[in-house]
């Protein structure tokens, strides 16, 4: 790799603003033929926005994109595709109720052609998937595929169109370490087939492993550009963060009593999301229990169960050694479970409610926020102001609609809302996803502080590095089954990856029947 035979793509001084936020500030770089270029940066650095401009999904406020020497018309994905640019989005753009083939061939033929050419398309997909090691059946319904398979469909979508430039946005975020290796092999094949690749990531080890050259973005600006073989992780990290990395010191925990215990809990599958399969788990005071796993393997079911959204269909849940009567969100809250949901925009908050209304969302019906069915806005506002002050929520005031806050400030409000009650059990589901580095550190410190004052914390994350850094004990979830507990440092990422891929369970749990 790394043979530089000319420039295939050039970004010239791209600037993009969203309201007052400048997402990209005069960013320029170029991509060589047959090159793997890593676009490195923290969450919120503007990587995805930049690629969406390149792919014509946003229009830049200024600046141009040149592909093979031709300037692309702005805001036109069609032109980008026709020029040979393909993009694999971080959030897949697939229609679940349609087949793999339908998803791949969508929009490839001119719309007003009389017939879909199904059999030719099928053999072409099969040929491509063989050549690039992307095994997937064209007739499968996308909704039935695993996350890894769906990513293959996304890549096939681009390859089917004969793209020359492939952009992948955080492609490993949803993969096991082993699947990530397969992806890297596919990318190598792609480069051998004379494609050029832009690889977006915030993970240093991947960038070092796969790229020829690295471009670093910070706060929307291009802050560095280096050949991969002339740099190292530390140098990249300091470029990415703008100085020293704020390392979170994790001191060993002193675990106490078991506060929440699941006994062989099974929950039904919901659509394609697996339910729990006879899961037993103890959350102990003063300990962070980490849950690793590829997304869509039962994390949602476990979070729903502990958060009270769904009861067990088999098995038992004990909270403080008591079996709760009717398991519901109210019951979970009453039992002192603090819940930080996965999706803070759609589940954690109500966008058009103000901060006050969002702050009391879980407790509006209890003292001091209401009495006899009537709300006390004064007490509610005071509480909201308290949370804003204590948890450093940056906002104009408690009357601001929460949709105007950044993700980090929104998350701080959610944290404050649940931590103010000194909860004994904390369910943190993807608590730092999409946050910038400052907010990530803040959330992690709050979780560690809660642990140190004796709370039992369950940390669910698809980021294996995060789980390994913070957890005192790690479980892996795969297909709704839970691995045994591993102590901190007991397993390497590769070993955990084997469990994440669903192996290892059979030796541990022999078939009962």
């Amino acid at each position, binding site marked *: 790799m790394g043979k530089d035979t000319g420039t295939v793509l050039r970004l010239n001084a791209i600037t993009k603003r969203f309201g007052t936020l400048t997402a990209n500030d005069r960013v320029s770089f170029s991509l060589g033929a047959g090159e793997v270029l890593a676009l490195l940066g923290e969450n919120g650095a503007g990587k995805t926005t930049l690629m969406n401009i390149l792919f014509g999904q946003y229009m830049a406020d200024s600046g141009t994109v040149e592909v093979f020497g031709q300037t692309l018309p702005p805001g036109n994905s069609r032109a980008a595709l026709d020029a040979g640019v393909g993009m694999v989005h971080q959030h897949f753009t697939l229609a679940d109720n349609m087949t793999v083939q339908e998803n791949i061939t969508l929009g490839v033929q001119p719309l007003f052609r009389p017939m879909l050419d199904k059999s030719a398309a099928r053999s072409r997909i099969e040929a491509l998937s063989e050549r690039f090691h992307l095994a997937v059946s064209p007739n499968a319904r996308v909704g039935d595929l695993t996350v890894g398979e769906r990513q293959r469909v996304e890549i096939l*979508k681009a390859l089917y169109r004969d793209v020359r430039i492939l952009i992948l946005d955080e492609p490993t975020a949803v993969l096991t370490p082993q699947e990530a290796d397969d992806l890297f092999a596919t990318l190598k094949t792609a480069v051998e087939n004379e494609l050029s690749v832009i690889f977006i990531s915030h993970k240093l080890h991947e960038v070092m492993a796969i790229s020829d050259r690295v471009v670093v973005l910070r706060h929307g600006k291009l802050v560095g550009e280096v050949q991969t073989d002339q740099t190292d992780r530390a140098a990249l990290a300091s470029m990415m963060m703008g100085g020293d990395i704020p390392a979170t010191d994790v001191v060993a925990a002193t675990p106490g009593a078991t506060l929440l215990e699941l006994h062989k809990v099974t929950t039904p599958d919901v659509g394609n999301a697996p339910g729990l399969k006879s899961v037993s788990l103890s959350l102990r005071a003063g300990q962070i229990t980490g849950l690793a796993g590829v997304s869509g393997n039962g994390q949602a079911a476990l979070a729903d169960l502990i958060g009270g959204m769904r009861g067990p269909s088999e098995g038992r849940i004990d909270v403080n050694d008591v079996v709760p009567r009717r398991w519901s969100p109210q019951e979970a809250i009453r039992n002192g479970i603090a819940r930080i949901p996965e999706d803070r925009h759609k589940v954690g908050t109500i966008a058009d409610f103000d901060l006050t209304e969002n702050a009391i969302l879980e407790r509006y019906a209890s003292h001091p926020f209401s009495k006899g069915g009537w709300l006390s806005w004064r007490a509610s506002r005071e509480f909201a102001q308290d949370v804003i002050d204590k948890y450093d929520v940056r906002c104009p005031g408690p009357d601001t609609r929460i949709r105007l806050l950044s993700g980090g400030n929104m998350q701080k409000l959610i944290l404050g809302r649940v931590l103010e009650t000194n909860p004994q059990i904390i369910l943190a589901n993807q608590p730092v996803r999409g946050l910038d580095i400052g907010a990530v550190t803040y959330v992690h410190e709050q979780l560690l502080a809660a642990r140190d004052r004796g709370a039992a914390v369950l940390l669910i994350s698809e980021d294996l590095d995060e789980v390994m850094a913070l957890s005192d004990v790690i479980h892996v979830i795969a297909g709704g089954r839970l691995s045994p507990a591993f102590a901190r440092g007991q397993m390497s990422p590769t070993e955990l990856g084997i469990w994440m891929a669903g192996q290892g369970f059979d030796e541990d749990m022999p078939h009962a029947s």
Partner: protein
Amino acid sequence: MEIFEILMSVSFWAAAIRIASPLILGTLGELICERAGVLNLGIEGIMVSGAFAGWMAVYSGTGLWTGVGVAMCVGMSFGLLHSVLTVPFGLSQHVVGLGVTLLATSGTYYAYRLALPEVTSPPKIEAFQPFEIPFLSDIPGIGPALFSQTPLTYLAFGLVLVVSLVLYRTPLGLAVRAAGENPAAVAAQGLSVTAIRMGAVTVGSGFMAMGGAFLTMSAFDSFFFEMVNGRGWICIALVVFGSWRPGKALLGAVLFAAFDALQIRMQQTSLGADVPYQIFLMMPYILSILALVVMSRRAEVPAALMVPFNKGER
């Protein structure tokens, strides 16, 4: 045993097919809109406007097929209005749909009053006549029932086939279905979700107007106020009943129409003498609700139905 006799009669099934025709057209139109992800509650008003426009055109001297074309154009302009508000602007499909129904209905009545200020009873037109398809109409039983209908009925059945083929066999249909399942997938493949959805709503509204035109040009030969009488709402129920598939929707419409024809005939029987006629008239509506209850659970709703798509959303 009167029911049995009714069910065995050719005229009963001929009537059922005739009653089904406007429902088939309306249901197909709604189905196209919903498949692309847009609920079109303008259907009731668009059917009224189509009924009037087609009839008025013929009354002013155009040919019958031109009249059908005029009805479609009027329906499509209301569809365009609906889609401009609901697709690029993403306004509430409920509110816009009801607004379009009100606008189309009142606009039609206003136009009627302007065009025919003096008349007390609306004039009749020379409408479509039944056309016996050679050979097929000679088949005993089903021949006279199925193949001695007016051309618009044949067109309605033919369009079911056409819409099925387009939806499932062509690149266009694939794009329409994908727009109703996940618009982001459509945008990522370089297609315009806005154009696809607006096109589907506009064309679908043309179908609805044709369904309305059937009433004045193939059934009653004249235009009355209140003549659509909830047929549009029933079409919406039929789309759910048909699980968003043209073939099943056709089946649902025929079943429903058979039931409607049956209740009309039951009013004439000895049972009809004892039971108030309103009970019979209620039956189709009650049946629609029951069908919704039964089907709602297992129906495969387009995943992005009523979800607006804003490509710059972040």
